[in-house]
């Protein structure tokens, strides 16, 4: 099974552990990821706030490059995922935008025929490979681990996606099959504020804080997420532990692939757990060391 891989800017930067753990997990699951040659930024939410046609053309360059590969495109970052899906829909449904983007792409001798299927790795793992297969391949049980599965916004909204926009369960199913227990976590798709932590910190910290509070109140050992920006916000809002403190009061945040990798027999080091900004806490440390 082969897919074209679109890492996106964060996975080559502050979310390098997501990139590394995803690649290793996919190899374990028999999926080959071939990184898209010379991809550019998807434009995220911010390009769209300034320019529309240009934003679509910038995203479409990636889709045109991916089309030549003839395989589905995998985008792990929520913003990239939704931007790529949204561009596909806009180009399909608005003829004059498509005509404009076509003209723009021609400037670089590119053409996009709208055939690229964009998928999220969680979708591939849960719906293509299947939870049962993953559980069979697992070598380390996650028994006793209490997780808060945080999906965030853009992998389930606004595009019709592989899971429910209000109460997705893919990660619950996946980690449940591996022995972990999902705590009651109603904030699973509540917005973390995204860039608000930078632009309007008083609003952003309220939103991110609520999610952390919800996870802690319900007794989670770890928050597991799919989005680089969510992870960054959830990590940086928490104060680093003083001295060699055991992080009482803080809760570790991991990419879902980091935890999945552990279950599949990867070492804590290869899953970049040491690159987390927060202490891992007792249960996770015990599990990673086992």
């Amino acid at each position, binding site marked *: 099974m082969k897919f074209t891989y679109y890492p996106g*800017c*964060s996975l*080559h*930067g*502050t*979310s*390098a552990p997501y990139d590394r753990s995803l690649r290793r997990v996919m190899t374990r699951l028999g999926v080959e990821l071939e990184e898209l040659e*010379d991809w*550019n*930024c998807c*434009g995220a*939410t*911010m*390009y769209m*706030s*300034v*320019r*529309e*046609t*240009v934003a679509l*053309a*910038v995203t479409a*360059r990636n889709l045109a490059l991916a089309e030549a590969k003839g395989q589905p495109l995998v985008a792990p970052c929520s913003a990239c995922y939704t931007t790529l899906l949204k561009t596909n*829909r*806009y180009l399909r*449904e*608005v003829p*004059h935008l498509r005509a*404009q*983007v076509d*003209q*723009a*792409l*021609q*400037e*670089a*001798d*590119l053409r996009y025929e709208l055939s690229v299927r964009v998928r999220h790795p969680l979708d591939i793992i849960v719906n293509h490979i299947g939870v049962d297969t993953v559980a069979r391949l697992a070598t380390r049980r996650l028994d006793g681990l209490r997780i808060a599965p945080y999906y965030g*916004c*853009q992998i389930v*909204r*606004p595009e019709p996606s592989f899971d429910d*926009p*209000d109460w997705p369960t893919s990660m619950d199913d996946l980690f449940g099959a591996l022995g972990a227990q999902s705590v009651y976590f109603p904030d699973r798709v*509540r*917005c973390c504020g*995204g*860039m*608000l932590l*930078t*632009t*309007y*910190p008083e*609003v952003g910290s309220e*939103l991110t804080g609520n999610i952390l509070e919800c996870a802690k109140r319900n007794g989670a050992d770890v928050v597991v997420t799919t989005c680089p920006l969510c992870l960054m916000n959830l990590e940086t809002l928490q104060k*680093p532990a003083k001295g060699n403190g055991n992080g009482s009061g803080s809760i570790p945040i991991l990419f879902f692939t980091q935890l999945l990798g552990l279950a599949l027999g990867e070492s804590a080091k290869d899953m970049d757990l*040491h*690159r*987390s*900004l927060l202490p891992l806490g007792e249960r996770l440390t015990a599990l990673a060391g086992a």
Partner: protein
Amino acid sequence: MTSNSENGELARPGELSAHESELRAAFLAEVEKIPGGDRIRRCIQCGTCSGSCPVSYAMDIQPRQLVAYFRAGDLESILRSRTIWICASCYACTVRCPSGIKVTDLIYGLKRMAMEGRIRSRSTPTSTLSSEFVRLVNRYGRSPEIELSVRYLLRRAPHRLVSQIPLGWRLIRKGRMPLRTHRVKGLAGLRRIIAKAEEMETSFPRKRLQPAAAIGYGAVSERLAVEEGVVT
């Protein structure tokens, strides 16, 4: 009540200032480009959008009110509002709207109108960050996350820059701060794509507004406040 809205006084219901009419025309053209954008006409003012919005508590005009203000002929107040910059693109409103209105996409259109049309005399945190982001993506082809944050803070909140140093240090120690920015190889081609698309981009009315030119809800509530003695 006079109908001389150009002098900053109230127009009669249904009467629009020249600039408001211009803004409306641009907004409706923008709405047409959004797939399903014309569903805005079907708004039933139920408030599901406002109730679903995680940041509505920090907005001056609620998402539901965006449509109400527009219908009342007061697009100008919307473009001056804090609301459009606070929206974090979580799309909760969009997936829940019973009339299928693409609220988040409409707000993107409003952001572009406000920025391009210089509706506000000052930039907002969101407009600064977004335009800085676009500049950097156009320069490198990719988004340099750290450079973006630093440039943003230098422009908007230099005092916060110092408090970010410990975080920067933590990221460096964890090997999560790339020190070199990657440029895409096909940068020249990407820039040609951008330049061509830029030629075709929608342009918005650019007139600088008179402060008291608003009619509709904003002006009515101001007037009521005066009449009721809340303000003088």
